[in-house]
């Protein structure tokens, strides 16, 4: 496939992620912080997010599986996940976290369990999407092309 075609695919794919709400403007901010002297910045930050999130999801699963759930602890983990997803622009993950925290506040275990399931779903979805995006970028770079900057209306 020609570089131009992959570039087109990348642009379209990225735009769709924004349209579908997987990513928000913060992701663009990350991309703007990347340049020749820090060419892997976005991948690095997102990788940190992946590692951190998976740890948090594990801890959440364990915490919600206890006979006496410590909602404060659960809330602490969700707060962290909300923060990191917000920092990289993973909008849908962040939004589930907001609902999740509300359930923690009223100590609604069912609500929390539902949110845990949802947040896992959203996390794996966005992880998948971002990995696809990075793969496209790699293909472009490997073919000697440059990664186009996305111009979004917002």
């Amino acid at each position, binding site marked *: 496939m020609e570089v131009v075609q992959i570039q087109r695919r990348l642009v379209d794919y990225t735009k769709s992620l924004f349209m579908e709400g997987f990513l928000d403007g913060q992701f663009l901010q990350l991309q703007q*912080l990347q340049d020749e002297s*820090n060419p892997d910045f976005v991948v690095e*930050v997102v990788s940190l997010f992946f590692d*951190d999130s998976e740890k948090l999801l594990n801890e959440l699963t364990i915490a919600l599986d206890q006979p006496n759930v410590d909602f404060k602890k659960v809330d602490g983990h969700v707060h962290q996940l909300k*923060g990191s997803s*917000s920092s990289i622009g993973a909008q849908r993950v962040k939004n589930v976290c907001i609902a999740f925290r509300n359930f923690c506040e009223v100590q609604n275990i069912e609500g929390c369990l539902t949110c845990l399931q949802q947040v896992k779903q959203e996390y794996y979805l966005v992880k998948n999407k971002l990995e696809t995006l990075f793969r496209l970028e790699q293909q472009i770079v490997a073919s000697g092309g440059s990664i186009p*900057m996305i111009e979004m209306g917002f």
Partner: protein
Amino acid sequence: MGMAADSEFHVLAVDDSIIDRKLIERLLKTSSYQVTTVDSGSKALEFLGLHEDDRIHQNTPSVSPNNHQWRLQEVEVNLVITDYCMPGMTGYDLLKKIKESSSLKNIPVVIMSSENVPSRISRCLEEGAEEFFLKPVRLSDLSKLRPHMLKTKSKDHCKEQVDEKTAFPSPKQEGKEEQQQSNNNKRKAMEEGVSPERTRPRPNGITSVV
């Protein structure tokens, strides 16, 4: 945005989230500041040369008895930017400690928070925070930092002239000098964020839509 040698300014960034530390470091470096990042308020105080449990002793080196250089000029902190929500010592606690310390109180402090709580914001500002940024922090937010750092820099210059005259130096000037008191050894244990090379990358605004 042609900034001159802002790399003369050194910012200490405090955040327990590794993602946010990486972000703030990149934001600050892009704005041409020197950066050190730490993951807790207590580490921040250590870096600044202040121990939590004891007041700063001007005549006693903080840790190493062999270290005579506890009044170092080299690593001066011109601004502290800290997350609000951290386990143990919150950003607010850290702010308070800095403002209560005679040696550190002139360092401008900026608070970051993911939560927009008006009472929290006013509390921090009342305690002496210069700015309160909502997370995620953006490059445009950082442009607000420079004036605060410039203020403390110019005080330094004034100090030389005024010192001899005043019998009772104003707390602000006295504080600036003591601010440089620090322990070099401690810094090595910190998460190192200062890069020797002064890269001044600018996001290349190539917006070619294919």
